[in-house]
């Protein structure tokens, strides 16, 4: 066998452009390698088609310089195989053919070659062709990475915009869905089945009367923080925050088949999370406050409500109003549920904690509705 020219690696830097030279003639391979190394490229060599394929599969190069006439697998075979495989099809292949060999060029084109070089290989031509392919390759990579960056940026903006209202998990889903279905917060208002949860602070009026303004704001922030965390834990969406009340919706804007259970667990979580906060306030300010919660499910309207100048994405309708009334009736640490909702979550609630309030006529309502009260003390967690 012929002696192999020493494979001197001109550029071993990790970011160097990597070329695989495939030629059964070691002098030819050595010559091609040297010219490419002079251009700062990292070169590997393979002496036949089979080992070239293994090389490409294990460490894909940025370009393959492939001799056509080789014993065993020909350059055409190697080219066809690489171009036929999705994972290697994008690697540019330059076929090295004999001079004026039109037949080889036609076969090379059919095999999917990106470019051709004739033997004897002229230095300038080799460098020019490889550089051109490298530029194309770099441009394609650059475009792809820019497209990805833009996509990431767009999703990040959506996530940021929505994370004030909804749980991070929901924000992710919206950002991911935005590309496919458009903004789920846009579009016409629509009727949908949902569960509304209203929570507010029992004794808030006393708080504002007895405590100085700065302290009230800090306390409200603390209170809303724990309630928001509780809502996000169960993927509720916050639709309104006013004074000391908080409106959380479930099954909106994305379907949640277990919306009732999520609402119930959120209510428990709110009471539990607020307990240590309330204890702290009692120590510091001598105040006795607790969360009162109303939950109701049914058909309501979801959409942007307001004028062209000011609109809010919110839920309006009977279950929302009922939840608000129930909240007003709830004592500190108590959760009031409308009848249909109670039926959906009763399996989660120990019977001894439930107090049937009977049919209650709520303010603004003509018909009395069944109401259930649950003392949501710590340890009630389902």
């Amino acid at each position: 066998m012929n002696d192999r020219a020493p494979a001197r690696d001109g550029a071993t830097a990790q970011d160097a452009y990597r070329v695989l030279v495939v030629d059964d003639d070691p002098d030819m391979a050595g010559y091609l390698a040297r010219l490419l190394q002079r251009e700062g490229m990292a070169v590997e060599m393979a002496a036949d088609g089979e080992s070239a394929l293994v090389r490409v599969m294990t460490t894909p190069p940025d370009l393959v310089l492939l001799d056509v006439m080789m014993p065993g697998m020909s350059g055409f075979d190697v080219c066809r195989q690489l171009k036929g495989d999705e994972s290697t099809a994008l690697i540019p292949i330059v076929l090295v053919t004999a001079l004026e060999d039109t037949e080889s060029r036609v076969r090379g084109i059919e095999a999917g070659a990106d470019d051709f070089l004739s033997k004897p290989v002229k230095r300038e031509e080799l460098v020019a062709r490889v550089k051109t392919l490298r530029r194309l390759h770099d441009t394609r990579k650059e475009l792809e990475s820019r497209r990805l960056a833009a996509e990431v940026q767009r999703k990040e903006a959506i996530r940021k915009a929505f994370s004030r209202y909804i749980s991070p998990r929901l924000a992710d889903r919206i950002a991911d869905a935005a590309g496919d279905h458009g903004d789920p917060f846009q579009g016409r208002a629509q009727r949908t089945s949902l569960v509304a949860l209203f929570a507010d602070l029992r004794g808030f009026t006393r708080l504002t009367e007895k405590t100085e303004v700065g302290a009230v704001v800090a306390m409200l922030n603390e209170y809303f923080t724990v309630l928001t965390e509780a809502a996000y834990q169960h993927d509720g969406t916050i639709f309104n925050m006013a004074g000391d009340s908080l409106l959380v919706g479930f099954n909106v804007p994305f379907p949640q088949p277990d919306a009732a259970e999520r609402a119930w667990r959120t209510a428990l979580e709110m009471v539990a999370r607020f307990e240590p906060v309330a204890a702290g306030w009692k120590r510091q300010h001598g105040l006795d406050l607790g969360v009162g919660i109303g939950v109701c499910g049914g058909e309501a309207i979801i959409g942007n409500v307001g004028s062209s100048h000011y609109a809010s994405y919110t839920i309006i309708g009977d279950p929302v109003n009922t939840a608000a009334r129930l909240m007003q009736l709830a004592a500190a640490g108590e959760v009031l549920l409308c009848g249909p909702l109670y039926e959906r979550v009763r399996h989660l609630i120990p019977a001894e904690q439930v107090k049937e309030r009977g049919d209650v006529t709520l303010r603004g309502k003509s018909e009395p509705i069944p109401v259930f009260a649950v003392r949501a003390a710590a340890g009630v967690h389902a």
Partner: protein
Amino acid sequence: MTAPTLTVTVAKDLADLIPVFFKNRQKELETLRTALSATDFEQLRQLGHRMKGVGNSYGFAKVSELGKRIEDSAKGGDAKSIDTCIGEYAEYLSKVQIVYE
């Protein structure tokens, strides 16, 4: 043979490849002789084809020229012409001078 054709200018950055290149050409010469005595025209054609490609790439036009003649003669089964080429090849390899630039 006039002296100028036996002086070949080779690019400096290929200098360290040249000793191996010539070692391989000497081996090639032996293989050509063996193939000719065995009248293995297919091998002679392949060897000629390789000489044609590699010679000029390094700057040795004569190697490519001889390669083409050997390849063509092998296709035509012309042993006599190949023998002449091998003789020229041997002489060339023994006399060629290299200048690096």
